[in-house]
Structures are given as C-alpha cells and as structure tokens.
C-alpha cells in the first residue's frame, strides 16, 4: 500500500517536471520580472505586454515561462537558475528592477544564456557579456534634456531625485553632459517614494533659484516632489522629469501642477504624435494600437513597450542564429548572442538600437524625445 503511494507520488513528480519541458526545436523564453513588491508598478504592465507576444518567431514555436521575482534579488537569482538549468530556456528576459537584473546577469553569464534586461542597469566592464538592455540608458535619455537647456539658455540647474539607484544614475549621467554645455549644478536634494512631504528639499532648491530643476523619479511617485516645488512657488515650466515619469500616472496624480512641465521620454508613448521621419513612429503606433486594444485606452506605457521590443529584436536575431544551431542547444544560444552583437541598426518602438560587442546598451542619440504636458496630455517639443 505504502509502496503504491510512493510510486504514485514519484510518477506525479515525474509528470510535473516533464510537463513544462518544451518539445525540441521550440524557442523557449524565460521571463523573471517583479509582479509583486515595490517595483510591481513596472512589472505588471510588462507582463501585460508579454501576454501579447506572438505564437512563433522566425517560423519556430514560441514557449514563454513567466516567473515573479517579488522585487527580491535572491528570488530573481533562483528563478534565473531554474529557467536556465531546468527549463533550458534560450533567452532570459528580466528583471524590471535594477538590482535584481544585475544579480541575474551573473547567472546568465555562467549559464551562457542571453539576458534581455528590462532595466537600464549599469554593470562593471566585463560583467555584461551576455546581458543586453531593452530600456534606454539614462545617459541617452539625458541628451534631449541638456539639448533643451542649451536651446533655452539655461545656466544653472538643481537636482531632486530618488535616494536610490535610479536617482544616482541620473545624477551621474546628466552632470558631465551639463558640465560640457556650461550648465552648473547648484543644489542636489534627495527624497524617497514613500515620503509624505518634500517641503525641506523644495525650500532649499527654490532658494537656490536655478534656471531649471530636474526631478528624477518614476511613475506616480514623480508627482509629489513636482507638486512640492510648485507649492513653494517654483515655475512649472522650469521643471523637468525623466523617462521613468513619462506615464499618464504623472498627469493623473499631478493634475494642474505638472501643466507646462517637460519630460524626457522614449518615443513609444507618444508614437502617433512623432514626425514621420522618426524611425520608431510606425513601430510605436503598432505597439500602442495592439496594447490598447487589449488593455484599454491610455494604458500603454514604456514598460509594456520594452516587452514589445523584445519580440522585435528576437525576430531579427533568431533567423540569423537558426543557421548555426537548433533552439535548445548551446550553439543556438551563442549564435543568438553573436547575432545581437552584429545585426546592426535596429529600430524598435522605444528608439533605435545598435548593439555591438562593446556596447550592450546600444541606443543611438536619436532615441530620446522631449515632451511637454499641455492640457493634460503629452506634446512633442520639436
């Protein structure tokens, strides 16, 4: 009796492990993103974007496994190991959270599997051999802001950013660009998303009276500091927001106080308003129509767009890699990495990518778009 039960359990276990194993020659993508925890605001729209992935790529059937890393580095690493060793995925996608994505990079390099990061994580040289970024680096997104400042004759600026990696990355990337343009940083202040007020920081920044203030925050968290600055009498038209804030949530929460302010953004969220010459326009419009048909009007944001772009780069790279090996083999995985590094200029909905062996960020300077909030909607600043 007891033996039978053990046998049954063993059989069940065997089936359980067999079930997710794909048939040979299917392309398997393993996704590990933050569906719960503090950065779920980024992970949830990404998941909705993944739900719209096609059934096949390059004539091969596509299997997708989505796991939740709970915004936890340990969980992210566990997921990645599972995806690589048990599910034998061809590509790892994720995470949307920078520290988690960084930790996953090591595991992917070890398993010689390409990682398509959904976060603009900076990795030390030599560590990102198998990791490619889907979002733009902050350095690329800082370009349109500094260009705009040059155009308007801005001489000084203040910085109000998250006291975390996102804020740091922005400060680190915009400071040299601005310095080269002769624009001086007069005050640096920090805050946290869960803070109840930024009165102290706003008072100090407004007293320093810079020609512009950059707020480095994301989603609806970017609205509170913005309102704080306006409340202390700072001009709305002199406040700049980063691409992390380029969602309708900023306008929803910020209301009248964000009117006339500037936001640096990837092209996808405003695709239909871009000039026809923009390489991302057609793809961006396609993404928006597809995503909003499934999730409702005004739901498209940059995180879902990155998920859309994953398919675009795979559609270009997979046919190249298929010539060298079958999916599910180490040859295919290596070929895929080589294909990414050599496929050249690739327009996606979020800009124009050009990955090389040395540059795994790859967005070209033409990527960023400057937006202005006009009557509760985005307007592209030419």
């Amino acid at each position, binding site marked *: 009796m007891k033996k039978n039960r053990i046998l049954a359990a063993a059989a069940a276990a065997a089936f359980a492990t067999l079930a997710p194993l794909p048939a040979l020659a299917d392309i398997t993508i393993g996704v590990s993103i933050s569906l719960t925890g503090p950065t779920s605001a980024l992970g949830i729209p990404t998941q909705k974007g993944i739900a719209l992935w096609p059934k096949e790529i390059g004539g091969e059937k596509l299997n997708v496994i989505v796991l939740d890393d709970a915004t936890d580095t340990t969980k992210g690493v566990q997921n990645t190991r599972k995806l690589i060793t048990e599910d034998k995925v061809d590509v790892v996608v994720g995470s949307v959270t920078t520290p988690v994505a960084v930790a996953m990079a090591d595991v992917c390099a070890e398993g010689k599997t390409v990682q398509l990061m959904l976060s603009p994580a900076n990795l030390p040289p030599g560590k990102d051999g198998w990791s490619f970024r889907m979002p733009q680096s902050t350095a690329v997104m800082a370009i349109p802001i500094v260009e705009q400042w040059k155009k308007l004759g801005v001489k000084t600026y203040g910085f109000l950013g998250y006291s975390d990696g996102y804020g740091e990355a922005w400060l680190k990337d915009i400071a040299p660009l601005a310095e080269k343009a002769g624009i001086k940083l007069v005050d640096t*202040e*920090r805050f946290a*998303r*869960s803070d109840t*007020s930024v009165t*102290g*920081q706003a008072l100090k920044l407004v007293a320093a009276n810079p020609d512009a203030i950059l707020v480095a925050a994301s989603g609806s968290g970017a609205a*509170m500091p913005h309102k704080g600055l306006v409340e202390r009498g700072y001009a709305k038209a002199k406040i700049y927001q980063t691409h992390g804030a380029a969602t309708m949530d900023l306008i929803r929460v910020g209301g009248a106080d964000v009117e006339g302010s500037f936001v640096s953004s990837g092209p996808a969220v405003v695709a239909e308003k871009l000039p026809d010459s923009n390489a991302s326009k057609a793809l961006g419009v396609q993404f928006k129509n597809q995503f909003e048909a499934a999730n409702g009007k005004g739901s498209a944001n940059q995180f879902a767009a990155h998920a859309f772009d994953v398919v675009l780069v795979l559609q270009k790279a997979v046919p190249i890699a298929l010539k060298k090996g079958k999916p599910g083999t180490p040859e295919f995985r290596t070929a895929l990495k080589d294909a990414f590094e050599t496929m050249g200029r690739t327009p996606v909905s979020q800009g124009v990518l050009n990955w090389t062996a040395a540059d795994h960020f790859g967005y070209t300077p033409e990527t960023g778009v400057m937006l202005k909030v006009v009557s509760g909607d985005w307007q592209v600043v030419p």
Partner: protein
Amino acid sequence: MDLSTAGILLLDGVTNGAVYGLLALATVLVFAVTRVIFIPQGEFVAYGALTLALLQLGKVPGTIWLLLALAAVAALLDLADAVRRGLPAAAMARGLVRTLAAPVVVAAVTWWAAPLKLHLLAQSMLTLAIVTLLGPLVYRLAYQRLADASVLVLLIVSVGVHFALTGLGLVFFGAEGYRNPSFWDARFSAGALTLSGQTIFIFVASIALIVGLWLFFGRTLRGKALRATAVNRLGARLMGISTSGAGKLSFGLAAFIGALSGLLIGPTTTIFYDSGFLIGLKGFVAAIFGGLASYPAAALGALLVGVLESFSSFYASAFKEVIVFTLIIPVLLWRSFQHGHDDEEEQ
C-alpha cells in the same frame, strides 16, 4: 536659514507630526491593552487613503471583499466554537448576526454607493466604516487565540499580518499611487507662511480625536474597561471584563485612527499601497518615546519626529530617514537607564 524658512519647516513638521501622533496613540493603545506591537498600523493608513481614492473614481474598493471574507471566516470560527461548547441554537444565531451584520451592511452600502460618486464627506464616512470594521476582525483571526502568548510571538504575528495586508493592498489598489482631493481648499497666508485648509483640518481632527479618546477613557465604562485591561489583564478578567472584547475594541479604535490618518494625509502626498509601513513606523518611533505606555509622551515624540524629519530634509535630504530612525537609539538608552529592566511579563 532665515526665520520664514524655519517657520515653513516647523509648520510642515508639526503637520506631519500630528499624523504620526495619531498613529503613535493607536500603537500605544493596542500595546497597552493586548501587548501586541502592531506593525500593520500603517496599513490602515494606506487602506483608508486608497479606499477613498477608489470611491472617488466611482469604483468598488477591494477592501469590502476583504471585509466580507474576514467576517465570514470569523463567523465560521465562532460557530465552531459555539458547537464545541454546546451553546443553544438561538445563542449561535445571535453570535453570527453580531459578527456578520455590520460588515455585510457596510459592504452592501458601498456596493450601492460606489458608482454614485457621493459627496467627499459621505465617501469618507464610508471609508472610515469599512476600515474600522477590519480592525476587530484582524484581531479575531490573527491574535485572539494567541492572546496569552509572549510579546515576541505576537510581534512575529504582526510581521505576518503586515505582509499579508501589504500584499492584499497591491491586489486591491494596484501599484500606482493616488492623491485625494483636499477636504478644504482654502489658503491663508501670514507673512511667508501659508496655511492650507487641509493643514488646519489635520490639526483640528487630531485635537478632536485626542480629546475624544481622553473622554472615552475617562468617562465611559468601556473606556475604563480598556484601561483596566491595560493595567492588569488577569485582574480585569476577574472583574468580569472580557479581554477578547477589549482586544477587539482596541483594534477597532486603532483601525479607525489609521483610516482617519489616511484621510488626513491623503490630500497632502501621493499614497501607494505600501506607503503606510513607513508612516506607521514613524508613529512607532514616536510611541517608543512614551515607552509604549504614555500617551502624552508619545504625542510629544511624534511632534519631535515630524519636526526633525522636516529639518533634516532641508539640511541633509539624503540622510533624512537615517536621522529619524537613529533617534530611537538614544531614546532607548535614556529609557533603559532611567527605568532599568522592568519587564513585568517575563516574571
């Protein structure tokens, strides 16, 4: 720094301090009566602010499903208890009605009223009712059976309840934050100081609540029963005071205070499903000032935390939280030197 800057910072600090003060009072109250260090206090703040935000959008807030689910489970447990003790059917029915009536009525009213987009004040009342009813149910399900466990066990349960409520908050409200409309849009200026209507509202509500609590504890039988339970649980029980009833009442009050704080703070900042934790933690730091026992000391501590936070965000914004939470160490040192070790429950 000139005087006007200092004035603005002070006002900002006292405003936030008033809200922390309410949470500190709730923390002290819950600890005194039940010995629970109630970490999820802040979750009620987020639940309050976000339930109102969803009502504002004309949606049915997910909190009512939680309310119904908790009430149903509590009713089942009560029923099982009653069957085991062999109570007559009439008593069982009375118990069931007592547990289920209020949650079902409040949920039904919310279900009916949500799409109507009632006046802000009516929606606020509804929000208070929903969140307040959650309090006793949380006590019933998570703590009542463990009422005699050690403080440490209760603390661990609190951590679990905190994670559960935060996770449910994500399901109910989504990951993005909301900002509620102000209760009173007026603005008054005196020199460089601008006093918004909401700030006045916060002060008035805080003072009213403190006076209300004082009257409740000093003048009413139920309040006195709570105080008696806080002083000596066993003694109170011998006098015929139900300790589980006192626990439920104190959790109800804590939930009410949390929800009220959420309504007060909702218009001044963006509230996320997980914002409550940090706000509640600052209330906890303030409560430590009173050694989790003294209400006036906790209220003073809250004002100090608020003002310290406001000034440190001006001088060293990157280290603001560090400064606020480091405050707890000298306070603990001072308290332990002053009082020595008097952990009565270990004896």
